[in-house]
């Protein structure tokens, strides 16, 4: 199916505030954007949808002058423009709330909002008093009652996001871009954001809204654009499409076949966690994980799932609670001990905690298994290559050679190396934290298939995920966490998206 034809009468008569034509951008090994065109109109919200890695954030970075495109043109009010740096885009009236919060922990809230364009006194010096006052006004506009002078590091993730939004509004922009602005916000804050967007629209701003949540796209967007693998594959009016159509455009096939979950007979309990608590991060965690089971952990970003999982492998120390593996009590003080005991954790932040960029693929894979591949402390390269080949080929890794630096691989392939690395330790229990975050659909399927296969072989799997379809497609059972506590448990049979979302968001919080 080709791009939907543009039939909107109101916007087609208007001149776009900003128009991209034939934009391309490639990174080593990845064509992130290929010949993409997109126009944003004043007073209109355009939703940009696409799978992970489709190129959405890359487009945002080009629009805001952080990346320079390899080819194509940007027109602002019809005038061809070149954004050499972020400051140039800001000057042209383009502002963005980026996907990652790009703020400064050590600076004050006010300064985070105004860095780079702070109000000046007559002598050209920064006017702190006015800056604080202006910041207060802006924060009120986004519905955050924060003291402008406190340091950002003392805020929670949601407040930080609100600061980022306030920063975007501090520039008197004609184009406002929001890259997954609601990912870390709670229900109440999300609704305030919707209202803010409505106001911006009324002010005649052109808005680009990126989100994976279809309900909010249908709530606020006027138009949509769909990306797949760096190409624009469809655009049109929201009123003239359906959720199913959008998904089909995004994925390029029907969704049913995506999760290859095998039916497995669930065995006896393997891992028992009881009374786990931590003074500030989580409390009252009790559950059992059984042989062959895939146990899903669902929650909103910041719910404390990762913190809890990391306490299981000795990164953070719980203040109370016990873990039993095969009935025996375990005390784990470091990941090394966890690996020895047979519990492994595939971390969520691939770049920081998972892959060791700068080292070859095979050394990455064998690092936790060195005691097995070496003899009395001396390395045996042949043995390492054997182990690395065994596990990477089962995950269908695509690479030129095994002694290639993992940093040169695409994100999905890096993730496969990371998963292979922990599987190679032959664990009893594997904890996967956001295992398919940021990887493409094909790799995702490979990971899911392998996960399923492992469970069938009797391995017990914990899967932390914030993606409802993944949680619903892969889990035998789901535990929902909110604010450091378990707030719900569902068997596969009783799973529904609504139940999960309600539990994760805290039903009582939802306004009628």
């Amino acid at each position, binding site marked *: 199916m080709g791009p939907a034809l543009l039939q909107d009468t109101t916007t087609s008569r208007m001149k776009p505030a900003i128009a991209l034509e034939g934009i391309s951008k490639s990174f080593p090994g990845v064509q992130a954007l290929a010949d993409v065109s997109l126009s944003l109109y004043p007073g209109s919200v355009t939703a940009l949808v696409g799978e992970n890695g489709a190129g959405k954030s890359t487009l945002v970075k080009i629009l805001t002058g952080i990346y320079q495109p390899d080819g194509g043109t940007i027109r602002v009010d019809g005038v061809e423009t070149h954004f050499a740096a972020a400051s140039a885009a800001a000057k042209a009236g383009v502002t963005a709330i980026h996907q990652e919060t790009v703020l400064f922990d050590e600076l004050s809230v006010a300064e985070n909002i105004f860095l780079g364009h702070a109000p000046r006194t007559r002598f050209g010096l920064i006017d702190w008093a006015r800056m604080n006052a202006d910041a207060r006004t802006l924060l009120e506009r986004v519905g955050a009652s924060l003291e402008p002078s406190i340091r950002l590091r003392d805020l929670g993730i949601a407040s930080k996001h609100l600061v980022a939004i306030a920063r975007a509004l501090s520039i008197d922009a004609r184009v406002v871009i929001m890259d997954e602005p609601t990912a870390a916000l709670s229900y109440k804050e999300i609704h305030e954001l919707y209202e803010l967007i409505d106001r911006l629209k009324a002010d005649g701003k052109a808005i680009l809204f990126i989100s994976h949540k279809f309900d909010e796209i249908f709530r606020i967007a006027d138009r949509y654009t769909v990306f797949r693998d760096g190409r624009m594959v469809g655009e049109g009016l929201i009123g003239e499409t359906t959720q199913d159509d959008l998904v089909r455009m995004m994925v390029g096939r029907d969704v049913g076949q995506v999760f290859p979950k095998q039916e497995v007979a669930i065995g006896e309990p393997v891992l028992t966690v009881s009374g786990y608590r931590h003074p500030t991060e989580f409390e009252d965690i009790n559950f059992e994980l059984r042989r062959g089971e895939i146990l899903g952990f669902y929650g909103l970003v910041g719910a404390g799932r990762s913190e809890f999982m990391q306490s299981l492998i000795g990164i953070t120390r719980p203040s109370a609670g016990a873990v039993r593996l095969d009935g025996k009590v375990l005390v784990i003080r*470091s990941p090394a001990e966890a690996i020895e005991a047979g519990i492994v954790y595939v971390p969520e932040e691939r770049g920081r905690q998972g892959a*060791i960029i700068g080292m070859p693929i*095979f050394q990455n894979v064998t*690092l936790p298994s060195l005691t097995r591949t070496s003899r009395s*402390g001396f390395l045996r390269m042949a043995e390492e*290559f054997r182990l690395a080949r065994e596990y990477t080929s089962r995950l269908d890794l695509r690479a*030129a*050679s095994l002694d290639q630096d993992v940093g040169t691989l695409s994100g999905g392939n890096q993730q496969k190396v990371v998963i292979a690395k922990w599987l190679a330790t032959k664990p009893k229990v594997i904890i996967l934290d956001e295992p398919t975050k940021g990887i493409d659909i094909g790799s995702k399927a490979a990971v899911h298939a392998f996960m399923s296969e492992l469970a069938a072989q009797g391995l017990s799997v914990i899967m932390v995920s914030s993606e409802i379809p993944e949680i619903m497609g892969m889990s035998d059972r789901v535990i929902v966490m909110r604010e450091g506590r378990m707030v719900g448990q569902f068997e596969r049979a009783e799973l529904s998206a609504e139940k999960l979302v309600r539990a994760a968001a805290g039903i009582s919080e939802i306004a009628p």
Partner: protein
Amino acid sequence: MAEAHVQIRHIPDRLQSRGSRLLKSWESLLVVVALLIFVANSLASPYFLDPWNLSDATFNFTEKAMIAFAMALVIIAGEIDLSVASIVALTSTAMGYAASQGLGTPALVAVGLAVGLACGAVNGLLVTRLGLPSIVVTIGTMSLFRGIAFIILGDQAFTEYPASFAWFGQGYVWWVFSFEFCLFLGFAVVYAVILHMTNFGRAVYAIGNNQTAALFSGVRVARVKFTLFLLTGLMSAVASICLTSRLGSTRPSIALGWELEVVTMVVLGGVSILGGSGTIGGVVLAAFIMGMVTFGFGLLNVPGIVMSIFIGLLLISVIALPILYTRLKRRMAH
């Protein structure tokens, strides 16, 4: 899942042979530089190509190079130890004190090594237990260790060493090969094996490239780092034994400024100051280069400070030139 429908693509172990990789490496560049300096020296001074002179020249770098081996590991692991020269001074003072109490040579060596290890342990504990940045910790212990030597010795010197102690710094194993030089070669082999052929060495690289991921992968990061600081302490003690024996006396000011020379040697040897890469072979070559530069200039009676300008320029240019070269190549390609 059956292998039947997953098409297995074969990924080769290596694309380049080890040989061709070696040819393109930093070490080959250093070999070229070393050869150039060797030829230049032979042309510049008739005294250069004399086995005894060359043997004497090795004393210019062997002690520093032995410290550099351990320092290379520390830097590859993403840390730094600026207190090494002060450890040399403190261990020498401790040995001097022990000698003044009438201890024999074996006991002196034991005292020296023990004090070196203790200093290393102090650094290691401050870095791993309190989680302080090593650059600051070792700037502090650099003053502290030498300061203790000053408190003990003041304006005095220890000069009464047993006669047999002189062998470490002045003895010859065979013909022109001094004990120090042989020790240097021995340690080069030992450190090359540790770094390139053991699990421990692999852990050092992993920590230097990504400390957090290494921890998650089951590397005992704190333990490895602590061991590395013990090693620099130990090697400083070994260097101190050689130096003290060579000088036959101890003053608190010995080995002043060595820390920067050692770090220069390591960086010149291709170890990334940001951690994560480097080889012992490179450090050995850098030691020879620095030794030959000092000796060559010395034969021409060029003041030491001019040599250090040369080393400084060498340091910056060997790092800058490859960067400029790749940039130029990219520009030509466009």
